[in-house]
């Protein structure tokens, strides 16, 4: 069975993600249950300060999945990366022993950690067949961010430098996937609190690239990326209201839309940037075509 590891963000700031994800699952009849008793993987902080903590926190969750004999499905790129890195590090017998001692649990390293995109793209044909909403002409820049595919020495779920799974989903959903050069650039999420101006600069470069490539929408599968880009546009617009905004959607929101989900069901309104479908939903915001600007 597939066990879902939501991670801390999906249960708080990335609620639109977890909601839309749940909606899409239901719609596609994917069976998935939350990993019981999951805890934080320590993302972004543990590895920065304490090597073994950075292995032990994910390992605890791996151990739970292992005991259940289940695959672990992860939506957040940071969690995915930490879990994978820890699993790789635990291949080393000494590390494994140390960490297992702390956890009081044996680890066999056999848990399959899967990215949400792997699970979703297996359903791409169904999405293609069952889509109800026309997204034709909507030009989508798929943004993977840095963590999803860059896991040292680990064969990832997609090409490291040029992943295409989201593009396949976007095409299945009937929209046009753009090839653009910033799809795996780092958005500086971990600096959005510490050194805002740096993160803002990195985000604005990515947003700018999407704009220059003619994107109507950016889509992503990582809550940090979504939050960061969303926030950056919001913050930038505080400084300069003129800039056209590119909606930043979770991939599940986009797929959900194609499958007939309502903006409400998919929590589109919770995004800081507006919906790409202003007219139909009767909301006011900038027009989707921003490429020319």
């Amino acid at each position, binding site marked *: 069975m597939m066990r879902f590891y939501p991670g801390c963000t999906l249960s708080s700031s990335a609620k639109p993600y977890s909601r839309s994800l749940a909606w899409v699952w239901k719609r596609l009849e994917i069976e998935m249950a939350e990993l019981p008793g999951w805890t934080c993987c320590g993302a972004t902080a543990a590895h920065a300060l304490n090597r073994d903590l950075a292995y032990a926190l994910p390992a605890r969750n791996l151990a739970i999945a292992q005991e259940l004999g289940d695959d672990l499905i992860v939506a957040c790129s940071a969690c995915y990366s930490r879990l994978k890195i820890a699993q790789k590090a635990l291949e080393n017998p000494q590390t494994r022993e140390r960490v297992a001692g702390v956890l009081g649990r044996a680890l066999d390293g056999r848990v399959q950690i899967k990215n949400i995109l792997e699970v979703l793209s297996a359903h791409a044909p169904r999405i293609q067949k069952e889509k109800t909403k026309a997204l034709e002409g909507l030009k989508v820049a798929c943004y993977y961010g840095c963590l999803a595919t860059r896991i040292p020495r680990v064969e990832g779920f997609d090409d490291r*430098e040029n992943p295409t799974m989201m593009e396949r989903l976007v095409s299945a959903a009937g929209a046009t996937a753009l090839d653009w050069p910033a799809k795996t650039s780092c958005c500086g999420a971990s600096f959005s609190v510490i050194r805002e101006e740096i993160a803002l600069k990195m985000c604005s470069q990515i947003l700018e*690239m999407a704009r220059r490539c003619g994107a109507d929408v950016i889509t992503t599968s990582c809550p940090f990326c979504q939050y960061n880009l969303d926030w950056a546009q919001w913050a930038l617009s505080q400084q300069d209201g003129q800039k056209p905004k590119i909606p930043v959607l979770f991939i599940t929101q986009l797929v959900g839309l194609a499958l007939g989900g309502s903006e409400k069901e998919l929590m589109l309104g919770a995004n800081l940037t507006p919906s790409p479908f202003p007219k139909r939903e009767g909301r006011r915001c900038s027009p989707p075509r921003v490429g020319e600007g």
Partner: protein
Amino acid sequence: MSEIKHGSVAVVGGGIGGIQAALDLADSGFYVYLIEEGPAIGGRMAQLDKTFPTNDCAMCMLSPKLVEVGRHPNVQIITLASVESLEGRPGNFQMTIRQRPRYVDITRCIACGRCIASCVYQDTKFPSEFEVGLGKRKPVYIPFPQAVPLAAVVDPQTCIFFKSGRCPQNCLKACERGALDFTQTEKLFMLEVGAVIVAPGFDPYDARRVGEYGFGRYANVLTGPQFERLLSASGPTSGKVLRPSDGKAPKKIAFIQCVGSRDLRHQRYCSAVCCMYTTKEAIVAKEHDHQIEPTIFYIDLRAYGKGFENLVKRARAEHGVRYIRSMVSQVTEIPETKNLLIRYRDESGSLQEEEFDLVVLAVGMGPSAKGQELARRLGIELNEHGFAKTSAFNPVMSTREGVFVTGAFTGPKDIPETVVQASAAAAAVEALLAPVRGTRTHAKDYPEELVPDGTPRIGVFVCHCGSNIAGVVDVKSVAEYAKTLPGVVHAENVLYTCSQDNLKHMKEVIREKRLNRVVVASCTPRNLAALFQDTIREAGLNKFLFEMVNIREQCSWVHSDQPEQATEKAKRLVRMGVAKARELKPLSVQSVRVSPAALVLGGGLSGMIAALTLGDSGFETHLVERSAELGSDLESADVQGLKAKLLDAVRVHPKLRVHTNTTVREISGFVGNFSSVLRSPQGEERIQHGVVIVATEAYEHKPSGYLYGEDARVLTQRALEKALTPQASPGLFTVPPAAARCTVQAEPAEDEAHAPRAQGRGEGQLGKTIVMIQCVGRTERRPYCSRICCAEALKNALTLLEQDPDRQIYVLYREMISYGFFEDLYRRARDGGVVFIRYDEQSPPVVCKENDQLLVTVRDAHLRQELVIKPDLVVLSPGVVPDPYNEELSRLLKVPLDSHGFFVEAHIKLRPVDFASHGIFLCGGSHAPGTVPELIAKAQAAAGRAAIVLSRGQLEAGGIIASVDPEKCTACLTCLRECPFGAVFINEQGLAEIEAVKCQGCGICAADCPAKAIQLGQFEDAQELAMLEELFRPEQVALKALTPSPLPRRGEGERGRG
């Protein structure tokens, strides 16, 4: 040992390596099956534009070889073929071949291209393999214009007929020769061969796998092989450098080195050629378009071969190529312009961003996938890099007896090394199959030559070439016109002159009409002249009584829009051809007996190998060594086993005569017939021999400065090597154990990993902290890279660490020249803790002493900081200089030395172990520095080339050569000076005379002789001038002059102009 039975050899792979091996074998008495996977031979070299380091045209060098092997009576080319299996033992193998159908009968196809033009696909649609995807082809295509075999091929993968069975087959209908045959099927057959040479080459690394550079994603990111095609005049853009995205000429081009090489994520080794091919590509691009600004991003610039450094210097100084030592992490496409953004670190270490119009990725050489499959079928092993496994002491021997390997299949290498290895493999086969030499080759019998009577009786055959010529030129009127020309007694039109039935007909006509000269007006003489010459020879004519007029490539195909003018031109060309034919003379070819013995100069490693190879091939060999001992230079620990084996083998070999303490006083004669005087303490001895092999050495240069000679703790790498104990030397030859791929032990146990081990041997003398300084004295007396000293330093560093892992070793270098698999040594040294510090050419390290403590000061070029090291020992790599004695040898043998004192080969690419003077060959360090395996291959190759001469017994001399008319010679010696091949000598009469065997037929002497005393056969002045006059003779005058019946000789009467 099973019996040696078959005098035939299978050469698998038709690249330059396979071709060279095939030619060497076929020329020395073996029948060769050349088996090629693709539709044509030529390999990767055919796709190159120019070749480094001389940057001469690849096709100009290759094409003559292609034609030669294509026409060789003892070579059978089998294309579209792969090996199924190999049974049996050396001398008696059975090889099963699977040959895919071509759907074109190559004996009928004349490569006219009509099928292609009429294929139902109007547009060329499918990516062309030859153009590396930059150009397109149709389902039916001719691989490339110079292809051998030159014939169309149908690709069933893309042809509609094979895909759906529903194609009107326009191609079939269009072919006038009925050459297309869609009923062909796959064939399975067996060959009996005595030995196998495997040469399947390499695959360029797939740049898509290095995703960060965006190949396949960004239009203006190309690979090195693609860029070659872009530069090639016959490539998809006719040699114009244009961007794929918009067809515009790029200005700024970035080259990124080591793409997929020297990288644990891809190929661990260095691909050995890409630094140079990029340098070449940058220069050639610049030559094509001066606007272009090339920039090369690299880690180490590996310009280690002969002449390489010079090319790089020229690239920098003359062509303004910018070299930036900084690897690029990623390439970003700018959406609007499709330009490419690159970030790098400049000299000062600051990060720069720069836009380029085009990016070229220097992809490395990966093992050939098909070659690996082939290896499986042949039952030979691969090394850990996926290339053929060879032994260091026999670099062309595979793991299966009787199966030899060569070229890029044995590891990344350039063309000269491939050619060397090919000749070495051929030599090894010759030695193995010596007892059955000549048993499978055929010598053709020709009727006795008729002696032509004075008056020309010329036959002219004007070819339709289907509609290739006849479609444009009115061939009938050309033939009619030919009949009116003086001397012509027969002229006719032929549908295809080259067809078998016509050749037969031609012979009949020659006999019936007692023709004594033949003119064929058809296609280019470059392909078919030899065929026609052979035909008239079969009819009893001297083969030089033939002239070929090209009215296809040089007339109908280029003037198809002006049929009338084309017809007129064809007539003029025929008139010229007939005029020349009237003047043709039979040329004789004499046979010269060959003394079946060899002289090898230099009894070191190379000399011993060369002598043994020749001896094994059955030729008596004199091995001459200046010093008292053979192999005295083989000092390092790792070659002691080899040295002992060689000395034993030399001692007992029945064909070898060793002359130690001996030098050569005099060498006279020429190929096949040399006569030399050997001088030893015992006196002088004269020997007769057919060939000479020069196998002299190169020395470690004696360094100056760095406290060398002043402090005993400063020594050279060689001296260090001697000081190191023999055991457990990692050696340059032992293949490094497969370094644990990528996965470093994540956490070595704290104590175990780096804890000092028991005190190493020799540590007391050599000390703990050791500094090695590379490229000592390189700027001054030795302005070239010596190729071996970096690897030697690595080897010694590893030995030092093996003795005591706690030693601290610093290597101060300019460029780390760990090309090819030596990259493994470099990595092992770093993993062992050796610290490599790069210094700039401008600020070499300084060695000094402070209170008896050695101090080395060096400016770390990466940190841009001065560092001071306090070593216990300083080891210098002063590089290699050629034997000063070479000068004397060069005078004795009349062979050239380059400005550094190394011998100069005949052709750096295609005749790397031959001297320009026939019959003299070279190997050893005096040719160019090299490692032991490289020198062994070179020595074997020299022996193999020499064996070709010796195996013949007779040499043919004559034909198209120059000769002096003693009546006219004024003994001015111009020719003696000018002949590039030393073929002219002064005879007893004090006049110039030309040694037929040495003359190569260039005609330089003839053009330079002020007394016009020299004529070159087939290109005599009278013949050339006759053509000129006929060309410009106005029609009316010509017609008048034509009427008289007794044949007029070219004389005053005909002259005059309208």
